[in-house]
């Protein structure tokens, strides 16, 4: 269960950091009329297309002790990113970024622009309009973003296999633990972990789908 707890901690942390990073990024993407916007959008969506081995490769080699970026990091923090919990957090931030940004952009874009215009006419600052109109109207999108990045990080495997080093309690996440149990033909242990992960993932996903369908909603409708 240590591995499951580690994965949950990792996923919660990554989802929290991603919200802080992704909300302003998505706001900017939803608002900007800049022609180069598509480049930023493509860069953010890269992890959807690229195999995790690409990210794992760069983390190991560019951020390893022989890469210049890695040397910088080493001088600053005293160890490389590989084999650390921080390393997993950094990798997951990249890896789950599109899962946070895309629902947010959709939510922000679907808010009626006339509401924001009316707020501006009535003298509200952009910050106030963002806080009091855009954010409350985008709550379902924000929840989706948080839950998806949590769930996606929980299920991460390839990058962790490449850069984790399988250290119990530090980088042995639940997906790696399951893999190890299967490889050692310990199917009973693999099954315990797999079922736990399956149930958690199903519960998490059905929660957001239920909320989006208004089957059950913690906040008043629009």
């Amino acid at each position, binding site marked *: 269960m240590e591995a499951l707890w580690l994965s949950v901690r990792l996923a919660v942390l990554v989802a929290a950091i991603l919200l802080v990073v992704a909300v302003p990024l998505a706001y900017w993407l939803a608002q900007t009329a800049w022609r180069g916007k598509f480049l930023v959008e493509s860069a953010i969506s890269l992890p959807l297309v690229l195999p995790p081995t690409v990210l794992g490769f760069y983390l190991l080699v560019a951020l*390893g002790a022989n890469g210049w970026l890695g040397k910088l990091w080493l001088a600053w923090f005293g160890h490389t990113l590989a*084999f650390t919990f921080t390393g997993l957090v950094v990798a997951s931030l990249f890896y789950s970024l599109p899962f946070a940004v895309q629902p947010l952009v959709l939510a922000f874009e679907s808010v009626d622009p006339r509401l924001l215009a009316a707020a501006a006419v009535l003298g509200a600052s952009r910050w106030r309009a963002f806080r009091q109109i855009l954010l409350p109207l985008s709550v379902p999108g924000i929840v989706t973003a948080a839950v998806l990045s949590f769930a996606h990080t929980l299920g991460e495997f390839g990058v962790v296999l490449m850069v984790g080093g*399988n*250290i119990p309690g530090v980088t042995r996440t639940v997906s790696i633990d399951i893999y190890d149990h299967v490889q050692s033909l310990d199917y009973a242990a693999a099954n315990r972990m797999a079922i736990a992960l399956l149930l958690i993932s199903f519960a998490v996903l059905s929660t957001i789908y239920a909320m989006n369908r208004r089957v059950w909603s913690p906040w008043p409708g629009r």
Partner: protein
Amino acid sequence: MPARGCIFKCLQSLLLLLCVAIHLSAQKKQLRVAAASDLQTVMPEIAAAFQADSGHHAELIFGSSGSLFAQIQNGAPFDLFFSADSEFPAKLVQSGRAEPRSAVTYAVGTLVLWLPPGANCDPQAEQWRCLLKPEISRVAIANPAQAPYGRAAVQALQFARLYEQVRPKLVYGENISQTAQFAQSGNAQAGLLSLSQVHSPSLQGGRRWEIPRDAYPAIEQVAVVLTSAREKSAAQEFVQFVTRGRGRGLLEKSGFHLPDDAQPSTRHK
């Protein structure tokens, strides 16, 4: 037009060549060889030499002995299994997945302590003490549950009475190749690897110390022909090539010790 005529002729001969190639490859037998990761440097060379001699092409699949064992137990379509130990092949014989009479020790592996170039510890002089230095914050070993070299590394560390001290520094590679990669990329400052890997060009610059043989049980590497093999005679031929033919020399050159005589493994007759 002469130019067009030439293109046609070239295409024609290319097509003919292709047909011949396809015909030839269809005639020769294909072998699928599952091999432990410590063979990753030498096995391609052996397979190429085997093909030159016999005409049979051998496809190579690498992994930790444990994970290949698990795949074979679950019916992976391989013809041969070159393990890095003798236990996994013995278990395959027990479960009826491998031909009992085919088991043969083809090499004996050597565990080495390897430090990347520029490390400020000389493993020849300081031996195990290198691992205790504060600059060495990560030591890569293979996963002892799946990789025989990982098992040997843990046993050697225990023999040196250093296991508890070094354990917080240990990072685990999925197989011995990933372990080497961890050390080679400098993410780990030391690694317990196989001598055969240290012979490969990418690890040539580092410094190494061969762990004394009394520190760990001999890494007797056993090969078996699988019962599901489609080409049993070709598979047997490949094993012969490795244990008695030119494969022997190639194994020795790349850092393996050879069993005194390549008799069928005594452990599981």
